[in-house]
Every structure is written in structure tokens, then in C-alpha cells.
């Protein structure tokens, strides 16, 4: 059976593509799947850092494509999981070192070795973006509830639609208290603008900063608030129907104020 090939993309940078790739990948691996994460951000790789594997890189994606090593030599297995591996991007090369066809071929080869191939796309919609989506047959669009991120996501959704790639949405960094006060767009607002199927809602939580800097995906740790959120995303990805946590629901004071206003 061939793997599902899913690209994580966003248009805007810094919305959490790499963090989502790593945590979804690790959560899938925990469920017993063979997972390969591909960093396509040639020249600005970071996936290795977020997993704490940066010191173990020998070969990279460009060297595989140029035939200077075997795919298996370039794949780095995660210490914590035999079933999770990454293919790092080259750091000192340019994104035009490879073509879309070469990338599609590489992703197909990886697909014979895994159950899931997750492709971490660079920011922007230039050559790096086109390469990253070339081998994918599904997409996860990551955005944050900011007007600028949503505009960029909308542009990317248009480009994915042109290629007939089915896509689902993750809204990252929601701050429920700001949504309640009207200072942040709600999930409903975001979904209405982008009108693609929702896959996950991730609240803004400081624990993500620390775990990212330490190279330890939080789905592998204990006691993290976001862990169950990622586990739900992965179960939805696998076809389970899991209801969304209603982060927009008003708290006690919100309801009180609502009741007073209604009265």
C-alpha cells in the first residue's frame, strides 16, 4: 500500500507549519504508522531543529536528488521512534537546485517506504512552494486568526485548487479570550472567509515555544495541554469523526455579560 502524501503549507511564514508537521508526524508515529517528514525549505531548514536531530544530518534532500547518496542514507530516524524519520533540506543550496518533477519522483519513492509522507513547505509561493506541492496529493493549510495570514492562506488555497489538491484547514494560535472580546477573528470568521474543511483548532500556548527550542515535540511529552489537540487532529486525518472543542464558548463572565445584554 502506498503512503498518503500530505503537504503542510500556509503562504505566510511563522504561522506554525514546521511545528504542526513535527507534532502531527510524531502523533501518527505514536499510533503505529511509519512516517517520513520531508523538509523542503532548502537554504532555511528548521525541521531538524524542532525534532532535535540537527547534529545527525549527513546527507540531505538535494544530494538524494542529485544521486550522490541513497534515500535510505539521507533519512534520519528519530531516536524516540523507529517509525519516524526525516529527510532534511540542504542548508547551503538554493531552492532552484531541484525541479518539480524531481521532487515528485522523490516523494513517490518515499511513499513506498512509509504510511505517511508529510511535506513541510517553505513560506511564500515561489519555486520552493511549487516544489513542495509537486509531490503531494493532499494539503493541510495552516493559518492564524490574523487578517494578513488569512489573506496569504487564501492565495495559497487558490493555487492548490488550480492543481486539484484536496485540502483541509488548521487554525493555529487562537486566543479564546481575545476572540471573546472581539479583538481576534473567531474560527467561524476564518472558516467563512477561507471556506475549506476544518481539520483542527490549536490554541496559542506558551508551552510550544519551549518544546520547540528544546527539540522535543510536545505530543511525545507528558502533561502538555496541546497534546490531546494534536491527537484529535491526527484521528480526524485518519477519518474519525471527532467533535471540535468549542474554544469560542463564553466563560462564566462572558455568559453573564451576554445575559445582561440580552436582558
Amino acid at each position, binding site marked *: 500500500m502506498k503512503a498518503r502524501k500530505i503537504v503542510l503549507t500556509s503562504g505566510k*511564514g511563522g504561522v506554525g507549519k514546521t511545528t504542526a508537521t513535527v507534532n502531527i508526524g510524531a502523533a501518527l508515529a505514536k499510533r503505529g504508522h511509519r512516517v517520513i517528514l520531508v523538509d523542503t525549505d532548502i537554504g532555511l531548514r*528548521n525541521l531538524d531543529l524542532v525534532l532535535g536531530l540537527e547534529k545527525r544530518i549527513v546527507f540531505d534532500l538535494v544530494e538524494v536528488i542529485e544521486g550522490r547518496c541513497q534515500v535510505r542514507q539521507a533519512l534520519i530516524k528519530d531516536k524516540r521512534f523507529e517509525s519516524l524519520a526525516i529527510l532534511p533540506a540542504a542548508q547551503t543550496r538554493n531552492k532552484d537546485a531541484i525541479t518539480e518533477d524531481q521532487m515528485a519522483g522523490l516523494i513517490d519513492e518515499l511513499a513506498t517506504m512509509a504510511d505517511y509522507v508529510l511535506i513541510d513547505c517553505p513560506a511564500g*509561493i515561489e519555486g520552493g512552494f511549487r516544489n513542495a506541492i509537486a509531490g503531494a496529493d493532499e494539503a493541510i493549510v495552516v493559518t492564524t486568526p490574523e487578517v494578513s495570514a488569512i489573506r496569504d492562506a487564501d492565495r495559497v488555497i487558490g493555487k492548490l485548487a488550480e492543481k486539484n489538491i484536496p485540502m483541509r484547514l488548521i487554525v493555529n494560535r487562537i486566543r479564546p479570550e481575545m476572540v471573546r472580546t472581539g479583538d*481576534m477573528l473567531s474560527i467561524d470568521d476564518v472558516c467563512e472567509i477561507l471556506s475549506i474543511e476544518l481539520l483542527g483548532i490549536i490554541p496559542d500556548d*506558551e508551552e510550544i515555544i519551549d518544546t520547540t527550542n528544546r527539540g522535543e515535540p510536545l505530543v511525545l511529552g507528558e502533561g502538555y495541554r496541546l497534546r490531546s489537540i494534536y491527537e484529535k487532529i491526527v484521528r480526524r486525518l485518519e477519518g474519525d469523526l471527532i467533535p471540535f472543542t468549542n474554544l469560542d464558548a463564553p466563560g462564566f463572565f462572558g455568559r453573564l455579560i451576554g445575559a445582561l445584554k440580552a436582558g
Partner: protein
Amino acid sequence: MFPLREPYDVAQPPVSAAPVKLGRAIVVTSGKGGVGKTTTTANLGTALAKRGVSVALVDADVGLRNLDILLGLESRIRYHLLDVLEEKVELDDALVRDKHTPNLYLLAAAQSREKEEVDTESMRDLIEELRERFEYVLIDCPAGIEMGFKNAVVGAQEAIVVCTPEVSAVRDVDRVVGLLGNAFAPKLIINRVRPHLVHKGKMLSVEDVNSILRLPLLGVIADEPDVIVSTNKGEPLALRSDSQAAAAYHAIAARVAGEDVPAPMVEYKETFMDKLGSLLGGRR
């Protein structure tokens, strides 16, 4: 150099034969996306213009423009960067006057075009033309180090690099500084610092970041929810007087202008809840 032609003003000032003093073209860049390049450009531009100098902001993120949103000018864009580069319209027709700050102008990026369509030589000429007319030209660079980066950098003489206290951002900035080479005299802004996390050892400190990058520090900006609100509203924080970040942007603008003022920093202040937490020995 200034003022620009009014929209309905037919008479134009005579062109001076004397050589003009060129303005400073500064590119705001980072490698990594989402660290606050556009926010920095909008706020630094606003803070500089409030000092009474003329400022042009150029959005070089063709295809993914956002600077217009942060300034609240998105519905006033008629022409864009590529229209000017391809000589479809005059520069004056494409420059949009800011609604909040006099002396501040925006040249928006094209939204439905590609970065590869920008001609590098024309971009260099355009920035030079802007330098003849404005004292400051701030260029908002797209994320990444592809064509968009090259075109954003080509006309600049100086660079401001924006970094957040994350290992991934530090690595990307380090790469960009390497690509800029010895030119551009890059200076550093560290953005989105959360002092309570630094205090707890859960975030890199300013010293940690700059022990790797070793760049002259323009200033440090705290992570404030107000930034998101101001982005969504289209009103740069630098317009406000009640924000710590606004004060920091004004100090950075003064430093860019050459004034000898201290670099704004963020201090950790113990809150009531922190004290309570440490008293109870909890996890806070």
C-alpha cells in the same frame, strides 16, 4: 525631494539641475517568516515619519502583500509595484499617502502576480528614484531567500534584520546575514520577547540570541497581544502613546536616525500571580 504631487495638482515643481542628496534605503529582512518584518516596517516607518522626515514604504512581497493591511490602506491601492516597474503608470500614481501619518507613503506589491516577474535591474532603478524623493525608503522583504529576497535587497544600502527568540529564527537570520555579506551593515531588532518566559528559562534571552548573531542591537520589542489587534485594525502601534512597544519603535526610529538614545529593552516585572505562584511553590 518632497512634497509629492497632490492627486489633483497639475503644476509640478521645476526639476533642479543640482545633484540631489539621496535618501537611505533600508531593507527589513529575516529569512524566516512571521517574525515581524511587516509589523516592523509599518511601525518604524510611522515612527520615522512622525519625526518629520519623508518616508516611502515598499512592499516587496509580490503575491503575498500585507503591508497595506497593517496600515489600513488596502482599499486605497489602485496601482502597484509591478505597474511602476513595467512603466504602465508613473510612480506618483502608485504611491498611496498614509491615512494616519503625514510624510508617509506606501508602494504596494502586486497581489495577483509572481515574484519571478520582477526585473531586478528595474527594481534597483526604482529604489534609486525613491531615494531621490524620500529621506527614507524602507523595503519590506518577503520570507525566504529566493527571488523575492534578491529583489528586495538589490536597491538597499542598509539592512535591519528582525529575529525572534527561537532557535529556528536565529538560524535563519544567521543565514540571511551570511547572504548579505559585508555590505548592508545589518542591525538587529529582537521581536516578540516574553520576559516572564525568559525569566523562567523557557525562552532564549536577548544575550542568548545575540551571542550567536553578534550584530549591533537596535532594540528589543515585547510580545504584546496589542500587535495582533493593531494588525487587524490597520493602525500601527507606533501611533499610540499608551503602549510599551510603541515607545520602543520610537526609540528605534531615533537610533536609526542617528540619535544617541539607549536601545529599548524589555524588563521582567514580577506580577502578583508570579509572586503568589512562587510563594505557593507551584508550577507557575
